[in-house]
């Protein structure tokens, strides 16, 4: 067989394969097209608008992306031409949309009215994922320090984004750091690498501190030392420690409260607090109750507790009698102390709020929201 014949035969075989592939299940092949399309744009580092255009053309209807943090607002019509933002109308709520997985308020949508088309969900998923990666990679706006800290704190950030944030913050990946969580009401940041983050318990300031740097602060929770790329891990624990702080113990390192971590998670995920926590809530009728319980639980003697509270020991004695009667619990015993310590900690994790000038265990009587 000469070369030409061989080539022609191969050619025929390839064409046959191509015909068979075209005849593949149309649904699967359409899905593959969508995936290949977005993968190629990503691989080529296309701009953010190209992804939105592609989604609109695939869907046959307008598509859009908003990302408040980066002030991105893109909408294109079904032919891929830039278009104005839609009027606020009822149907906006019916359009299929998907949030970006970057802990921002960003989301993408396609303006499908009526019945969804087969690949709408796939399109949205690809568009959202591509937009997330492209925004992090391209960074249409230069990162400021706070955005860089947010990227380090977010567990969902990609490693590309983390590296970029570390450069911005002049940290090496292997720099030893820990996160300090403090109340966002406090005016000064604990370090220049700091951002205020919305959390379950209100806005909290997270500060990335390089090990060895000294930090003075009235109230904080600090996370464990980690490599700078793993800042997000330290942040979660710093926040947990902050939530366990009180007026009497305003500074807590994760290492001293780590046993409470799983319990705090459990409290967050449950509508029903443990009975001991409810007991504390029921006793918390006077401004001195929580402080007194804590002082007794963390000291060996009534005199020690009194010194901590700045009171005469007979006052502590009488308050304690009152509380033991109200709670029907022998507090002044090893078992009682342990139960009260645990219950107080979980009570604080549940009720401490930040960014609103309100601490449990402080001398205030306003109700916990």
């Amino acid at each position, binding site marked *: 067989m000469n070369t030409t014949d061989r080539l022609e035969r191969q050619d025929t075989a390839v064409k046959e394969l191509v015909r068979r592939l075209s005849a593949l299940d149309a649904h699967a092949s359409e899905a593959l097209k969508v995936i*290949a399309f977005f993968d190629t744009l990503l691989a080529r580092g296309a701009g953010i608008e190209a992804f939105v255009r592609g989604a609109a053309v695939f869907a046959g209807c307008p598509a859009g992306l908003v990302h408040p943090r980066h002030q991105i607002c893109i909408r294109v019509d079904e032919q891929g031409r830039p278009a104005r933002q839609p009027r606020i109308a009822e149907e906006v709520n019916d359009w299929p949309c998907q949030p970006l997985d970057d802990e921002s308020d960003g989301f993408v949508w396609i303006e499908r009215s009526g019945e969804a088309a087969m690949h709408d969900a796939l399109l949205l998923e690809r568009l959202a994922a591509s937009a997330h990666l492209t925004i992090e990679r391209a960074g249409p706006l230069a990162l400021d320090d706070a955005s860089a800290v947010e990227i380090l704190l977010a567990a969902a950030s990609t490693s590309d984004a983390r590296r970029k944030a570390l450069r911005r913050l002049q940290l090496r990946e292997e720099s030893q750091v820990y996160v300090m969580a403090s109340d966002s009401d406090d005016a000064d940041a604990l370090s220049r690498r700091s951002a205020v983050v919305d959390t379950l318990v209100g806005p909290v300031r997270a500060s990335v501190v390089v090990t060895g740097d000294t930090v003075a602060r009235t109230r904080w929770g600090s996370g464990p030392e980690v490599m700078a790329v793993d800042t997000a891990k330290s942040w979660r624990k710093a926040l947990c420690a902050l939530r366990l702080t009180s007026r009497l113990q305003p500074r807590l390192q994760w290492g001293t409260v780590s046993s409470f971590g799983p319990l705090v998670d459990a409290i967050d995920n449950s509508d029903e607090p443990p009975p001991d926590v409810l007991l504390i809530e029921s006793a918390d009728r006077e401004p001195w109750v929580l402080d007194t319980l804590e002082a007794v639980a963390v000291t060996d003697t009534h005199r020690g507790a009194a010194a901590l509270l700045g009171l005469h020991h007979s006052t502590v004695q009488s308050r304690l009698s009152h509380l033991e009667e109200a709670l029907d619990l022998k507090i002044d015993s090893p078992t009682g102390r342990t139960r009260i310590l645990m219950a107080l900690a979980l009570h604080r994790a549940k009720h401490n709020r930040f960014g609103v000038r309100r601490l449990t265990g402080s001398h205030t009587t306003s109700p916990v929201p």
Partner: protein
Amino acid sequence: MSDIDTTRPPGSSSVSTRAAGHPPVPPYDPELEAVLAAMHPTISPITLADLPTVRAEDRRMAGEAVQRLAQRGFTLTEVTVDTADGAQLPMTLIQGPHTTPRSPLIYYIHGGGMMLGTRWSSYETFAEWIDRYGAVVATVEYRLAPEHPYPTPQEDCYSGLAWLREHGPEYGLAPDKVLVAGISAGGGLAASVTLMARSRGGPSLAGQLLLGPMLDDRAVTASSRQFTTGLWNSSENATGWRALLGRLAAGEHVPATAAPARNADFTDLPPTYIEVGSAEVFRDECAAYATRIWEAGGQAELHVWAGGFHGFDTHAHTSVAQAALEARYSWMNRTLGFTGVHPSA
């Protein structure tokens, strides 16, 4: 994806134009590359053996095109062009609801590598001219190679233009300023018709609009050898020229009316628009053609779009295609003497 025209004859599923042992090539525009990635695989490279299959698809698409044009409210008038060798060619005059006595007349020549296509191929392109400029478009069914080699396709196309001058007034057309337009092989034929009109004392032309035109059979430029895979690659280009010219192809005796790049005299040509992608076989012959016109004191406008493959402008959602269309309409505005506006705008 609705606007991916997978029936366009030069087709390929190949994403990259790079291959071992071949010269480096400009990368595709990212959006265009993504379009290729999402395309159905099509037959590539096209060979003479594929012609029956592709032509059958062309005929099916032609029926669809006629339907679509009628749905858009256009009026289609069928006429017959008699050729010197006794053939009768179908030609269609298409006009929209906005035609006036001052409407421009555009003579459209379809593409398909000299071997493929019908007068309806890429009808979306000329339908836009009807909407935008109230133009009357004449599109001719020239005979195709290899069954009808040079000079038949070229003479057929010239016969269509001559018909417009002779019979146009019977249809209310004023054929004194025809804009000749063509895509791909049709662009090459439009350039040939323009040269023929000049040498034969044919109608004076408003301009020639050459979109990715096929001008040079010699395969001597860098771009003609740079793209060995992909849409309308060098092997398909060679197939097309061989179909048209037979043994003459790339030899010494190919006349300028067959391959306009062979032309020596570039004086007295009408205003010329040339659009091409940087990632296609025709890039360098297009640049050279514009340069020759400038050297001869003529008016030419050349746009080489970065990362465009052959026919990239049909993927109208991409940023680069939108830019190409804007530039094209700008030239048409200046050449036709008024700003065309799409009725929906």
